């Protein structure tokens, strides 16, 4: 792995450590408070802080997961080279697309 990918994976892991903790705390709060889907959406609609936080979460996932998957595939399969890189860039774009689609759905 290049130095850049190594640094990107470590930095995205730091973001994810915080983001996952906040995400889990939010789920616990919502379920303990007995919030309905409508009540949750009422809080998230138009909430810039919410959209920014989950937007950052999505970017961190889209950076972190493909690099980890790249390492796993290199170690456990003979797949190497540009086709592997290309496939993982596509995977990253898919995560970004699906992630931002979800963020927009609960923000807008």
């Amino acid at each position, binding site marked *: *792995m*290049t*130095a*850049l*990918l*190594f*640094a990107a994976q470590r930095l995205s892991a730091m973001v994810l450590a915080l983001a996952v903790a906040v995400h889990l705390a939010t789920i616990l709060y919502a379920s303990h408070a007995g919030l309905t889907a409508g009540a949750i959406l009422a809080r998230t609609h138009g909430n810039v802080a919410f959209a920014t936080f989950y937007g950052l979460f999505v970017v961190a996932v889209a950076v972190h997961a493909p690099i980890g998957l790249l*390492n796993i595939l*290199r*170690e*456990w399969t003979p797949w190497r080279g540009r086709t592997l890189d290309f496939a993982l860039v596509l995977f990253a774009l898919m995560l970004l697309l699906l992630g931002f689609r979800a963020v927009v759905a609960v923000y807008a």
Partner: protein
Amino acid sequence: MSATLDVAIWRGTEDGHFQSFAVPRREHQTVLDVVTEVQRHFDPTLSYRFACRVGMCGSCAMVVNGRPRWTCRTRVSEVAEGDRLKLEPLRNLTIVKDLAVEMTDFFDKWKDARGYFEPGPAPETDFAVVPPETRERQTANAGIECIGCGVCYSACDVVAWDQDYLGPAALNRAWTLVNDVRDRGQTERIDAVATDAGCHACHTHMSCTQFCPKQIAPTYAIAGLKRAVMKRAFGGGG
């Protein structure tokens, strides 16, 4: 302690088999003593490798009861399971025959990791003064006693998964040279260890550190290389 040891020794190459020998058990006997006794008194065709017999040359490493060890400094009493010894060639290296493995890949990777001193185009003409108390000298000292036995390479899961991985010994050697203040080949060395097969492939399982018979910690050397690569990549020198 019973009178004999039940010794199972790997014979042949990759598709070989275990052969059992009943070897007299002796006080203070080493595993290498057992192998030598088998070759001298039971089967002269048994192939294995040794030289110094005192833990300096690094040539007698084998897998003993599932764990890689230097056999000349390993007493039977410390490792026998009851009266049984199971001896295999080192993992992750091609078997030449019986207990002897081909070490070429292992040492080629030292070269690939630039694990040799590079004096630069204009070497110093006088002796270099490297104070023993400096951080660089002490860091190099921590890894400099490697005898190239291959135990760490045999113990490493990442080598088992990825035959291109440089391995703990080569990376440890590179780290000692990164800390050699006289060396002038650092840019090329950092580039050499920052490839897909280099220090970033390490999973920090620490098997190398656990099994190194010289109590060297290649895991920490590899962590040092990761820091050095980051420093160089993001403009902090190193």
